[in-house]
């Protein structure tokens, strides 16, 4: 029983990381109506920044995390400005999608060039040992607890930001009707830029948590979690913030439990299989809204 609980909690922890990444995907999709396939690679960039800065400062990871958040935010803003904004009016939405894939490969190969292909061992940014329950039968690692708490805080702050601030309301307005929003004086470019900034900052936070839980770092570190977080966002209903959270947690738990009880080779197949089934039953995802038809 206690071992099941341990696996459940570690699933929750992995799911929390997916959820934070999925929030970035879902916000950008909901507001800019594009899939930023380079989002996973922002995580990897964040990890390398923490790795480098912490290394240079002999293990001061707090500074590393702050630098990573700031630089990833700038990376997000720059990518949007240079690669995505010029294509926003393009005739086909495919143009910006392909560009996003291009940005993804660009970042991976840039990391390959700078840091090499060898896997770096990442020192966890969380030094706390964790808690022990039930006379030592149930031990929860510090990184697990921190991850879950951080993701809940992120979700709460984000919800409050969107519901209670003028920038958040502008995001909702742009998400619903970009044309009407601009005619009401909303600056759509700034709104989308802010969305990218927040999504990328979240990617840096997710990177710190991911590499603390799974301490190996390569140029491809962000790719798989990025894809899975995308699956989580679609599963929860892309464009929906609580949906991204639910999708992420669900995916993390399914992955860990199927790794433990079914087969570690099959776990990814099960994860993606669930996506297919959910989309067959409910194409808009768990919390996705029905697309309104114009009369």
């Amino acid at each position, binding site marked *: 029983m206690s071992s099941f609980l341990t696996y459940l909690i570690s699933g929750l922890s992995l799911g929390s990381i997916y959820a934070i990444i999925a929030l970035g995907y879902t916000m950008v999709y909901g507001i800019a109506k594009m899939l930023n396939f380079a989002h996973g690679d922002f995580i990897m960039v964040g990890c390398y920044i923490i790795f480098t800065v912490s290394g240079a400062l002999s293990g001061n990871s707090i500074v590393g995390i702050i630098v990573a958040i700031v630089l990833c935010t700038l990376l997000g803003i720059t990518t949007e400005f240079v690669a995505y904004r010029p294509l926003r009016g393009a005739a086909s939405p495919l143009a910006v999608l392909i560009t996003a894939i291009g940005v993804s490969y660009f970042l991976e190969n840039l990391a390959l060039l700078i840091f090499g292909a060898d896997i770096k061992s990442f020192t966890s940014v969380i030094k706390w040992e964790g808690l022990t329950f039930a006379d030592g039968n149930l031990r929860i690692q510090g990184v697990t607890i921190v991850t879950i708490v951080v993701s809940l805080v992120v979700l709460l*702050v984000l919800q*409050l*930001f969107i519901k*209670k*601030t*003028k*920038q*958040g*309301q*502008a995001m*909702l*307005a742009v998400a*619903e*009707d970009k*044309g*009407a*929003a*601009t*005619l*009401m*004086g*909303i*600056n*759509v470019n700034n709104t989308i830029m*802010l969305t990218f*900034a*927040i999504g990328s900052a979240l990617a840096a936070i997710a990177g710190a948590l991911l590499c603390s839980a799974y301490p190996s770092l390569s140029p491809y570190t962000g790719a798989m979690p990025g894809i899975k977080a995308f699956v989580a966002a679609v599963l929860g209903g892309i464009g929906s913030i609580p949906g991204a959270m639910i999708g992420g947690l669900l995916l993390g738990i399914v992955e860990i439990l199927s790794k433990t009880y079914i087969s570690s080779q099959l776990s990814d197949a099960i994860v993606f299989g669930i996506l297919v089934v959910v989309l067959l039953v409910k194409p808009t995802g768990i919390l996705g809204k029905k697309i309104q038809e114009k009369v």
Partner: protein
Amino acid sequence: MALLEVNNLCISFGGLRAVDDFNLTIEKGQLYGLIGPNGAGKTTVFNLLTGVYKPNEGRIKLDGNDITRKSTTEINHAGIARTFQNIRLFKNMSVIDNVKVGLTERFKYSALEGILHLGNYRKVEKEMDFEAEKLLKVFDLDKEKDILASNLPYGKQRKLEIARAMATNPKLLLLDEPAAGMNPNETKELMDTIALVRKEFDMTILLIEHDMKLVSGICEKLTVLNFGRVLCQGETKEVLSDPEVIKAYLGE
């Protein structure tokens, strides 16, 4: 000086001249009507005035400033706000939040202050709430402020669209067929609302309308469009008795 001056405005879509040599002068405080048969180019003129379409030729001046080819956002900041023929409220947002979206650009605090709920955030949000509620009260929508915009009855949705446009603090308000789909009672109420906007805000209004009772009832001057060209322009009474106008509307 006129509030709005439009000279020689032209736009073509493919081979079609949708609007050709369009001229219009609106004085401050006027209530001006733009009428014409379906497909005459009335909404196209609105889209040109608000920057949704860029004209091939011509000039648009608002209050002495050239706003031709400015973006929709810039034109709104310069002082033109509008409503839409088919209502385009933010349906999934509450009534008050719709108005607050209109207020957004007039109130300032940084995104960081917003995320952390610090600094000017509380003060400015309070001011925005106050301003939004004041507007809703004028339009008699203050009791419905927390319900979703999509749950308002039709007539009130039209009202809310006007309130949202007024929130951007315009110099000129464009109303695109405000009475479309309304019954005579609702139209009567709308006329009262328009009169109220003029009185409360001293607003200059340009409206597109098919309802002749409304047009003859409240518009001071009219421009009639037909096939993208100005057919007739002048005082409402004279325009409506012009034989050319009657011909365009009723046929020979």
